[in-house]
């Protein structure tokens, strides 16, 4: 275990209300910079300005990926339900040189509810308070043709017929910086219940005040042990208490539910982010898997490791039962 200096993620400051909504979406690593020309929110909906934020942690040029965008209004409502259109414009490589025109097709993005939130089946995009609808919009198999900075414009029509449009910028990497599909899974020896010298809170932050470690079935097996046994494993990296985005708790709960249903087909593992939040000590397994060259990392991430020890699938930020369950259902029973 080595301590890592990490400040709490910062929202990109625009106006106070905007800062509030942006931090909902994702943990933005220090030093993340995007061209300023793409950072201004646009669009309005029923008198409420809609702001877009790319929630995907890692997009890689030339690789189909899952692009998530959160759309929120300045009065803290979320755009929920239905579908929207994503369109794209290349902004350049950050050098300041005029960017070339790089064509890219639009994509249709469907609402992806945070686990436990209503999916609004049959509804069109609607501004909702979080108790009524809460999630992001997802386009699958989005392939950015070139690395650099890209503008993503989300547009559509609200339930009252009002058109809206909001844009955000995101960096598209030339090569992945986080463990990716096809990679050999790092055989991390993450702490489990009973590991000597490890405080309970370092196994699950919800056990910080002396409570029993919740979801013990997620803390029975290390990643290394699962791989050694030839077991597929669903691994979630999250910190249910100290998560700055709102997604860690629901995603961890989802993995716990899947463990109950598919424990005969795979091992299920929760890796807590912090060994000691206040001392900014990060669990080594998190660094092994998620740390990017700048030294920072984001969470939550969920990985499916195949029986061959390679990454079979990965999901950042929000993931739903509907995305994971078909892969688990296809697995044979464990030996």
């Amino acid at each position: 275990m080595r301590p890592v200096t990490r400040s709490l993620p910062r929202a990109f400051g625009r106006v106070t209300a905007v800062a509030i909504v942006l931090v909902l979406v994702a943990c933005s690593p220090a030093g993340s910079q995007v061209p300023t020309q793409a950072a201004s929110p646009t669009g309005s909906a029923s008198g409420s300005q809609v702001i877009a934020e790319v929630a995907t942690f890692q997009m890689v040029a030339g690789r189909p990926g899952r692009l998530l965008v959160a759309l929120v209004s300045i009065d803290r409502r979320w755009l929920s339900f239905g579908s929207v259109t994503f369109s794209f414009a290349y902004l350049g490589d950050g050098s300041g040189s005029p960017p070339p025109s790089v064509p890219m097709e639009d994509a249709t993005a469907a609402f992806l509810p945070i686990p436990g939130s209503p999916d609004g089946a049959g509804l069109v995009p609607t501004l909702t308070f979080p108790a009524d609808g809460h999630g992001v919009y997802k386009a699958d198999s989005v392939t950015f043709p070139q690395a650099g900075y890209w503008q993503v414009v989300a547009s559509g029509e609200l339930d009252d017929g009002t058109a809206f449009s909001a844009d955000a910028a995101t960096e598209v990497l030339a090569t992945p910086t986080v463990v990716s599909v096809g990679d050999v899974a790092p055989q991390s020896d993450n702490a489990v219940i009973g590991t000597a010298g490890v405080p309970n809170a370092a196994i699950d932050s919800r056990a910080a005040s002396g409570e029993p470690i919740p979801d013990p079935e997620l803390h029975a097996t290390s990643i290394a042990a699962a791989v050694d046994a030839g077991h597929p494993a669903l691994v979630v990296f999250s910190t249910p208490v100290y998560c700055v985005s709102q997604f860690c708790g629901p995603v961890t709960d989802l993995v716990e539910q899947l463990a109950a249903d598919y424990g005969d087909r795979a091992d299920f593992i929760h890796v807590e982010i912090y060994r000691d939040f206040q001392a900014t000590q990060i669990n080594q397994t998190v660094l092994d898997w998620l740390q990017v060259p700048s030294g920072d990392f984001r969470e939550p991430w969920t990985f499916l490791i195949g029986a061959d020890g390679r990454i079979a699938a990965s999901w950042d930020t929000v993931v739903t039962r509907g995305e994971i369950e078909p892969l688990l259902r296809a697995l044979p029973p464990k030996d």
Partner: protein
Amino acid sequence: MAVGLEAASTGLCAAIAALPDPTEVERTFTNEAHAALHSLAAAAGLDRADAARVLEGMEQVETDFNSGDAGALATDLVALQVSADEALRALAIEVPVCAQ
């Protein structure tokens, strides 16, 4: 409706005012305080001890929603508001007065 970090405090005021109806408390907390509390905990300039108190207080309140312990919920909401107000003061943000 407040839209700055002060909403962490005003949202908790509204949630406390909704006691003892646990359903309304949870709805108000979710809609008016939850996001602002996350933002407050992530605010630049807030030290990790203050951030930890806010996040741990949120976890406790959310545990109370699940357990249905109304007495604990009331106590923990008030404790969370104290932590949130301390965090606002640490950021030199004026703590709003509870209207309720």
